[in-house]
């Protein structure tokens, strides 16, 4: 066997077995033996490159956002609430369907209340004992009470929720000042409270 013939089948020799003739040439020819050994080493060492690197966290964040936007991530049905439960991380993708649900629900409740005499409307019981956190909240609740008393408890309960959300988001932002997500969550918390106020005062002006 010549060196040229040996080197032509070298890929098969490295990846599989070798014939007696090829083995004989390998042992006899120093040049071909060195070449075969070096290429075998390269092939074997390549495996250390398998699976050793890790993508940055933004890759998963982008995947999750896309999955939620496409509806592939389906959260379990939540209890009725005008404002989402406080969470240390709030995903912006949830705002659109949540806001739509919020507006639709208020529209349905508003239609129901408008079609019934006041003495036939059941008062919505709050999920927990409620007290406004500050004077602004109290004024808003008074405005709601004057126009639609039946909605006061619902607004009061959800003010509690959104205020708790704001407190959590503020704490998270304070503890992680460089964390953009924490800052975003805080902005969204304020935005949620603002939305509650807007709905309340819009109702009271009708």
């Amino acid at each position, binding site marked *: 066997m*010549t*060196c*040229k013939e040996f*080197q*032509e089948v*070298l*890929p*098969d020799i*490295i990846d599989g077995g070798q014939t007696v003739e090829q083995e004989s040439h390998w042992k006899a020819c120093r*040049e071909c033996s*060195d*070449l075969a*050994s*070096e*290429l075998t*080493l*390269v*092939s074997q*060492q*390549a*495996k*250390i*490159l*398998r*699976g*050793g*690197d*890790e*993508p*940055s966290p*933004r*890759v*998963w964040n*982008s*995947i*999750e956002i*896309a*999955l939620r936007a*496409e*509806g*592939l*991530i*389906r*959260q379990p049905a939540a209890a009725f609430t005008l404002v989402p439960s406080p969470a240390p991380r709030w995903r912006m993708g949830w705002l659109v369907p949540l806001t739509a649900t919020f507006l639709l629900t208020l529209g349905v409740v508003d239609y129901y209340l408008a079609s019934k005499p006041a003495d036939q409307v059941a008062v919505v019981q709050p999920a927990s004992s409620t007290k406004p956190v500050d004077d602004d909240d109290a004024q808003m609740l008074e405005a709601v009470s004057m126009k639609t008393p039946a909605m006061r408890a619902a607004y009061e309960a959800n003010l509690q929720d959104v205020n708790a959300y704001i407190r959590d988001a503020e704490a998270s932002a304070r503890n992680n000042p460089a964390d953009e997500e924490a800052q975003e969550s805080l902005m969204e918390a304020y935005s949620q409270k603002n939305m509650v106020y807007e709905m309340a005062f819009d109702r009271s002006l009708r």
Partner: protein
Amino acid sequence: MATARKLQGGELSEAEAIERAKQGDADAFQTLYNLHKRRVYSLCLRMTANTAEAEDLTQEAFLQLFRKIGTFRGESAFSTWLHRMSVNVVLMRLRKKNLPVVPLDDPLETEEETTKKEPGAADPLLTGSVDRLRIQRAVESLPPGYRTIFVLHDVEGYEHNEIAELVGCSIGNSKSQLHKARMKLRDILKTSRAEKAKTP
């Protein structure tokens, strides 16, 4: 059947995660991602030699997988399915960019090309282990077509008939390009080792 790998700490197994992901469970998706992200990302990185590109391709591969997870019936290993999908995503990107996925058919080098040496110069044998960074850089410096074949075969373990089907070449071409890639890497590694030996 899907691999029923057990995880530590009471986490979901892969089989459980797959079933829950089909139901839209966010944690299940993340479990599957965490189980396979390194393998997929490394594959993308080796084939593109670009971290930003590799991250985009990793994202795309997982999104394609998750969109189709409802159709996974467990006839093959989940990791195999994901890996194939990842390779196809990378190859499509390379084709879109008009980068050569694999060079055109040409015969193996002649003896003269493979064994030429400088007259009178000793050519130390490449032996021992090669550190990860050196071989990583060497692979990154390969031409894209050689790099694709080398990564698929020697790094990821695909057979030549699989590579031929994936990249659209003949088995013979796959073998010849792999040989050229290995020869090129051998030269690069020998050169870098010689340069390192010279540095004080």
